């Protein structure tokens, strides 16, 4: 279930991974990657969206989200949780993040999320919650990596 995007960098073309899934007995664990914090947060959200529904979602509805944290992990927890709340309370199936703005000093994120009403799709995964278990957001060998376990 790895997701690759192709990016051309000068003369060489490399495959850059947005996120990957790891083993966990009962829940779902993923890692997301990015060249900066904006990208790792966006790709973490995309990993979450991919668990909810991994095919194309029409862009018919959009919501704005704005959350704070006190460190990168709590910011990520709060950011991802917004989509679960929209999912349960508004029946909103998220597809893509737009205009993400991350303030690293204030640990604040603003973003738009576009997607559609769940009833138009045969979605079959419900995520109960984001967890702090084994969670991290860190810079590793020049790139940003996040790790999240979600309760399903």
């Amino acid at each position: 279930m790895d997701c690759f995007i192709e990016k051309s960098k000068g003369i060489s073309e490399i495959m850059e991974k947005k996120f990957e899934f790891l083993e966990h007995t009962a829940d779902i664990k993923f890692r997301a990657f990015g060249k900066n914090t904006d990208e790792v947060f966006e790709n973490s959200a995309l990993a979450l969206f991919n668990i909810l529904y991994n095919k194309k979602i029409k862009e018919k509805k959009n919501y704005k989200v704005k959350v704070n944290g006190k460190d990168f992990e709590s910011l990520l927890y709060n950011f991802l949780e917004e989509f679960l709340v929209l999912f349960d309370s508004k029946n909103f199936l998220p597809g893509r993040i737009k205009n993400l703005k991350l303030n690293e000093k204030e640990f604040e994120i603003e973003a738009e999320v576009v997607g559609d009403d769940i009833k138009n799709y045969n979605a079959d995964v419900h995520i109960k919650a984001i967890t702090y278990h084994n969670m991290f957001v860190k810079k590793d060998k020049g790139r940003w990596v996040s790790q999240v376990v979600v309760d399903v």
Partner: protein
Amino acid sequence: MVEIKKIEENLWKIEKQKKMQVPILIIASKKILEGIKRDDTIKQAINMAYLPGVLKNIVVLPDAHQGYGACIGGVAAYDLEKGVISPGEIGYDINCGVGLLTTNISKEEFMPKREKILHNLKRTIPSGVGRGGKRYSKETIKKVLVDGAKWAIDNGYGTKEDLERIEENGRMSGANPEDVSERAIARGLPQLGTLGAGNHFIDIMVIDEIYDKDTAKVFGLEKGKIGIMIHCGSRGLGHQVASDYLKLTEDKYGTKDLPDRELVYAPINSNIGQKYLSAMRCSANFAFCNRQMIMHEIRKILKEDFPDKKSSLVYDVCHNIAKIEEHMIDNKKKNVLVVRKGATRSFGPGRKELSEVYRKVGQPVLIPGSMSTNSFVLVGKKEAETISFSSSAHGAGRAHSRSWTHKTLNQKQVKDILAKKNIILEGSFKGTMEESELSYKDVEEVIKVTEKANLSKKVAKLKPIAVMIG
């Protein structure tokens, strides 16, 4: 790797070390223990042993597996004065639980109607993702948070007799809806009376074997008759309550010295501790009401084809919950806070918490198997008080991850098992694959250990014939 010492058959111990407040008792056969050792179950049980005010020992039950924070199939008891409460330890699906309905419909009478009834269940009871039920008002939800299954009965979803057959009589007191956030209520609004997805299910089964005739009679179980089991919880409302209080706890008490950030804790006696307990009870009440409403729908569907037949609730039990109960600590009776994470209470005879219908014999302990394996009804035993704070396993226990399932199994394999066992199914492809018996531990082995370790005693075996998964 820590040393796991064998104490006796099916009992293992990890001694207190480093920052552990108490040792760990593992109830498992050698085979089950080998499985438990393969993931992070033991590490997570050790993390549970770090929390202040935890008493006697952490208990790891035979269906234990890795969770997120506490292990699933874990039990801990806390001193009410010095102890703490951790919203992440109890987890997000507060009062996820199981209810069992029994009927006087025989298998022979039922089989010709089997497909129609399963289809009607699927059509009528909202399940899966984003398929909400009726939308209730906030005011109604708040009433549900206080009254639990009693609200359902008062509004025509069942009878008074049902309440005597639900843990806590379907209503935990000390539940103040003011302690539940608007956000949690917003998530719960469209979800009352809905099953959910994942491992939540409705199983139609035949009572295949009776092991203890007298107790089976008290529980209303008769060989050859149809029983229906449901598994679901407090839905988005409970998930949000857990998350809200995890954050509030962290803001107030911080994460210093925690073995796992998910296990942030507050003193039980603190304002946050008490508010969380109240909100947790509200969520538990939502779940009791939710299961009762689903049970009522099931009964209505059965009535269409079997107007003269009867059905009664055997019991309804919680899996993820914290409760104040009296237990023996250092040879003294003491009120403690028992946290069951993926565990079923298994009170033996005489407990004052049990309603009169079951006080003499002990409570029914419902242990579902996986999608296509047998489920069991047991009866709680007095001995469990001293071994496991009166707790038993809550299911077969997952053995393999969802990604393992998709990598290793194919749809034909899973469908062939169902066909061979003559089980019909309503469910998504993904759910069918992930809930296959091949992803779970051997429930028969879990039951064998549960019985041999004196946690509870087998009463009946139920064999699935039709399954609806969320």
